[in-house]
C-alpha cells in the first residue's frame, strides 16, 4: 500500500496510544496474573507459585507483542480526494473514504484517552458499513484532522 502514497504521507496514531494499550494490558493481564500467582504460592507451595509467575510473564510478553503489532498496523493517509485508513494484524483492513461522501465527523475521547491527551476521529458517510476511524491522535492533530476533513468535505460535497 505504500506505493500509492504519492500525494501524502502515511501517518500513525501517537505513541501515546501504544503507552495506553501497554498500560491496559499490564493492568488487565500482568497484575491479576501476579496476584493469582501469590495466591497459588500460598495454597500450593512456592514451586507452583514460580510456575504461575513464569506463565504470567510469558502471557504478558505475548500480549505486549500483539499490542505493539496492532499499534504498528494503524495508519492513515490524506490523499487529494480521499482518506485512506488501514488497520488490523490478523484481519487486515483498508478503507478508502472520499471526502465528498462525508456526512459528519466525530471526535471522541474516553477517560483513559483524555489522561494522555488522546482522541479518536471518526468519519461517517451515508453508508452504515463505512468504518473510517483513527484512534490515538493527540488533541491538536485530532482537531486539525477534523477541521481538514470538514473543510474538504464541504468543498467536495456530492449528493447521495
Amino acid at each position: 500500500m505504500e506505493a500509492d502514497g504519492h500525494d501524502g504521507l502515511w501517518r500513525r496514531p501517537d505513541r501515546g496510544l501504544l503507552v495506553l494499550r501497554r498500560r491496559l494490558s499490564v493492568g488487565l493481564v500482568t497484575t491479576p496474573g501476579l496476584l493469582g500467582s501469590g495466591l497459588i504460592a500460598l495454597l500450593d507451595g512456592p514451586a507452583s507459585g514460580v510456575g504461575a509467575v513464569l506463565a504470567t510473564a510469558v502471557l504478558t510478553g505475548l500480549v505486549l507483542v500483539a499490542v505493539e503489532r496492532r499499534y504498528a498496523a494503524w495508519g492513515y493517509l490524506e490523499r487529494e480526494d480521499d482518506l485512506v485508513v488501514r488497520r488490523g494484524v490478523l484481519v487486515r483492513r483498508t478503507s478508502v473514504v472520499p471526502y465528498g461522501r462525508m456526512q459528519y465527523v466525530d471526535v471522541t475521547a474516553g477517560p483513559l484517552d483524555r489522561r494522555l491527551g488522546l482522541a479518536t476521529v471518526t468519519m461517517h458517510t451515508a453508508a452504515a458499513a463505512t468504518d473510517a476511524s483513527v484512534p490515538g491522535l493527540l488533541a491538536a492533530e485530532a482537531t486539525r484532522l477534523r477541521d481538514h476533513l470538514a473543510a474538504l468535505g464541504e468543498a467536495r460535497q456530492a449528493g447521495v
Partner: protein
Amino acid sequence: MRPGPLTDGWVRLHPLTPLLRGGRFALVLFALLGQQGARGAVDGQTVALLFGVGIPVAVLFGYLAWRAMRYRITATELQVESGVLTTRSRRVPLARVQAVDVVRPFYARVLGLAELRLEVVGGGGDAEAPLAFLADDDALRLRTRLLDLSAGRSALDGAAPAPPVPERVLVTVPTGTLVASVLLGPPAVVAALLVVAVLITSVLDLETAASLALGGVPPLLVVGSFAVRRLLSDYGFTVAESPDGLRLRHGLLDTRSQTIPAGRIQVVRVHEPLLWKPFGWVRVEVDVAGYSSGGEQQVTGALLPVAPRDLAERLVARVLGADLPAVDRRVDARARWLAPLSWRRLGVGLDDRHVVTTYGVLTTTTDVVPLAKVQSLRVLEGPLQRRLGLSSLAVDTAGRRLPGALAQHRGDTATLLAEAAARARTARVASAAPTP
C-alpha cells in the same frame, strides 16, 4: 390548538381521512364486541358507555387531527403541519427526494383515495412525509409536481392540472410466470423436503410418517402465507419509463406505484435461485437511499420479481444507462479452500461507470453498484485469505436494504482498490457536473 384559515396555498387532506384512519380500529372494536356479546359477557352499560362516550371522543379527535394537518408545496420544499396537542411542522427539501410512492391500501382504493409517500435520505424507519389520504387524482398530480420540482424542472403553478405524464411500459410480468416463480421458491423446497421425509419414514413406520406429515403442515402454512403475500404484492408488476423517472406498479389488493427519478439507484442485485435455472429466470432488486430496511408497509424492493435473464439484463442496462462491465476478474482455484462450492462464481468486473460482483452458493447473485454512488471502499484480508493470496473488496453504498457489494479477489486487491477508487472519483465528478 386552533388551525387558522387555509390561506397561502395550504391544503388539507381528504375529508374521509379520519374515517379511514379510525375505520380499522372501529372494525376491531366491533369484532371484539360481537365476540364478547355472543358469550354474553357484555352488559348494556358497557355498550352505552362505548357508544355514548368512547366513539364520540374518538370521532372528535379524528376530526381535530384532520383539521390540524395541512401541507403545501413551495418551490423548494414540502411543508407539513400536523398535531393537535403536540404540533409538528416539517419541511422536506425537495432536492433530497429519492423516490415518490403512491400507495393505495385496499380499503382506500374502494373510496378512490391514495397515500403519497416521499422517501428522503437518512430518515427513520418510516417514510419521511406520508400524506394519507388524498383523492386519487390529487395524489397523482402532486406526485408529478413534486418530482418536477425535485428534478429542478419548473412545475406548473398552483391548482392548474398538470398534463398527464406520458409513460412507456418496458416490461409486464405475466401472472402465470409470477405464480410459478413464487411456488418454485421456499414452498417447493419445504414441500419437497417434507415429501422425502414422509416417504423415508413410511418405509420404516407408518405411524411416525403420519405424525411427521401432520407436523409438516404448520411450516408449509408459514411458507405459503409468505408466498401469498408476495403474490399479492407483486401481482401485475409493470415497469415503465416516464420523464419523471422509472415507474414500478404492482399489487392486487393494495396497489403501489413507485417512482424512482433517474440517477437515484444505489445498488442493483440480480438473483438466480437454483430452482429457477431450468427456466432461465432471475429476480432483480434495487435499492434507493430513502427506503428503510424494515417496516410493515415494506415493498419487496423488486425492480422485476421474475423475468428471463436476457430481458432482465436489458432492463438493468437501460435503467442504469449503460451496458454493464463483464465480470472478467475471476478468482483462481486457490479460492476453493475458502469457498468450495462457489469459487467458480466469484468475480469482479469494473469499467468507468459500474462495479459488478458475482457470488453465491445455491443462488447466483450479481451486484451492480454505479461508481458515482460509492460511499466508501474497503479491503479485508483475513489470515487464511492472506495465506492463499486472496482478499475481499467491499463496496459500501447508502442503500439500507442492500448495503453494498462484496467481491472476493486474488492477489492484487491493492491495485483493484486503487483502480476502483480512481474510477469512482471520476464517475462522481462526472455525475456532479450537470447539477440540477
